[in-house]
């Protein structure tokens, strides 16, 4: 009796599609893993809490280090308020030789409409990705108090 051999052939288009998906997945995974090697921290917030009097500001120092704990220079760090209200002098900064950026923040003046509330800011590294934008992201809470 003649042995029957099974032949399973993928359609060519499907094969190409799967290869593309695999390559994209590898690149994506690469950026995800790469992102986890960075360490982004707020090393100081001064003063904390800050008074919501429409004048007072606080200074945040944010630091970026790589997987070996070395400071990372030249990365663009972007920051914005996600909860609460206030303004930064500059929302996008580049890390210096110490891997640091300095941010000046002023909370909105407390009013009868918007009482003083703590402000949550999202800080992320726009430069740690190679293929896809998978930024190292942290959230930081700035304490805000009534005048």
């Amino acid at each position, binding site marked *: 009796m003649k042995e029957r051999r099974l032949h399973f052939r993928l359609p060519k288009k499907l094969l190409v599609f799967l290869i593309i998906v695999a390559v994209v997945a590898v690149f994506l995974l690469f950026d995800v893993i790469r992102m986890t090697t960075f360490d982004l921290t707020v090393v100081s917030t001064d003063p904390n809490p800050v008074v919501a009097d*429409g004048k007072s500001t606080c200074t945040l120092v944010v630091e970026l280090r790589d997987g070996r704990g070395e400071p990372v220079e030249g990365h663009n760090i*972007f920051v*914005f308020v996600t909860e609460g209200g206030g*303004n930064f002098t*500059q*929302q996008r900064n580049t890390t210096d030789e110490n891997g640091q950026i300095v941010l000046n923040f002023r909370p909105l003046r407390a*009013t009868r409409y918007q009482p003083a509330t703590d402000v949550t800011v*999202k800080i992320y590294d726009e430069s740690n990705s190679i293929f896809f934008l998978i930024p190292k992201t942290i959230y930081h809470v700035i304490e805000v108090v009534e005048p």
Partner: protein
Amino acid sequence: MKKILCVVLALLLSATVLVACGGGGGGGDNGDATVIRVDLHGWTPTVNETSTAGSTAYNSPKYIAAEFEALHDNKVKIEWVRDKDLSLSREDVGQYFSLAISNGTCPAISFTWGTTFQERGWYVDLTSYLEEVNTYETAADLAGKPWKEAFDDYIWSLDAISTYDGQIAAIPLTLFAGSASCVFYNVEKAKEYGFVDPNTPAGEYTLGITDPFDWTAYLDYVSEAMSEDQQYLVDSNNYPPTASSWLMQFNLGPAYMSYALDYEDSAEGKVDANGDGTVSGQEKLQAVVDGFFNPVTKDYASELLLKEKEYLSLLTDANKDSTEWDNGKGALKYDGSWVYTPEVNMNRAFDWEMVPAPVEDDSQYTQDYVDWVSFEESQPGVDLYLNVMRAGVTQDGTVDGPIDEDKLYYAVEFLKYLTTREANSAMIEEMNTSIGAVKGADLPMWLEDSAFIDCQFAKTDSVNGWPGGFTTSISTQMDTLFSQWVAGSYSGTDDQFFAAWNDLQVQGAKDMAASLGITLES
């Protein structure tokens, strides 16, 4: 079975009719509350309450409105207008409101660049309300005083606030930060061209601070920049050219306007015909008809137009492209002062600074009418000004219909509430672009942190720019004529252009006067 079905259908029909009836009269889903539709243009609160990387939340007006509603026991409901495209031209905005009026959906409070559509009778006269005390104001120095006193006096003489027949048609909320237009300059290029001392340490540049950066300096800078590359100048606000270009409004127009308003001739008389020390709207219209702005006979008028052409004819599509500025090769960018914050947040790889609008102060006609003053003394134009639209406060939604007293009352009250110092400051602080129109309002953070506030700002006798076509129809015709002349495609001579320009402008003034019931002497 059929009977039951009929009863059910009848009940459904009755319910539908009841719901439909209940939806009329401005109540809608808000029960008996009077609904006030409010268009704050670019200051409308965002739908999203929290920011994302791509969109910044703006919440202050939402909170202010909620407080206002609560103060009135929720008998009023503020509804934000979100279907008006912010990028529409004035002509298109006119069409938007025409359609809204015909549909019965005109907002009660709107941004229409002040008095732009005055000839159409769309605005409620707010003059008498401004004499009332703003009872919402709690600031000690403003409380108990007429609402009008919360603002600087010069504002009421702005053409964008007062109509030609003397009505106040718009309430100012925000002003430009010292000047509407400004120039961003690349410091390295400024050093190269000799405008900044190469030895000056970063952050200590004095261009525009120790000496004014005037129109002559600006043209010199532009000349240097364009000798290197057309794209070293970015100016997307004056190209393509229009009769009411930014130059006419901010850089050249006000200085020449000051001269024209002061012009006096023994035979022709003067613009201030009754000699009361102020030029009324009617006197302005009459002055156009009488030839005080006629470039055929008035050298100051023709000089203004020729100076405009000198600059505008340099511009092409290439000057709208900001690539060279972005990459640090460009020398300067002419733009609005509100662009400062986005520019900072671009985190440019090159050093740049910003100076206020360069104004013409060298001409024999303008030299006595321009003072360079501090930020505090500057008289900036209005950025956000709001009208009460007649069609938004009438019972039937038409322009001429009977007034809905509740709607009118709440519309005016909400404007008063928005212009308390506390509300004004809250809006200014959060937006962080312009300054408040209310005296003593907080400054935006960016302004307090930048050297721009230390610059010298041009203050002209007239806060208004040079007149245009008055009506939207004539303005459009003047735009076409002017752009052809600047582009060199106008078939006639300069004198023929001046005559055509004047004919249109005079017609516009007459049309405006007729629409407002003003009788002009011919």
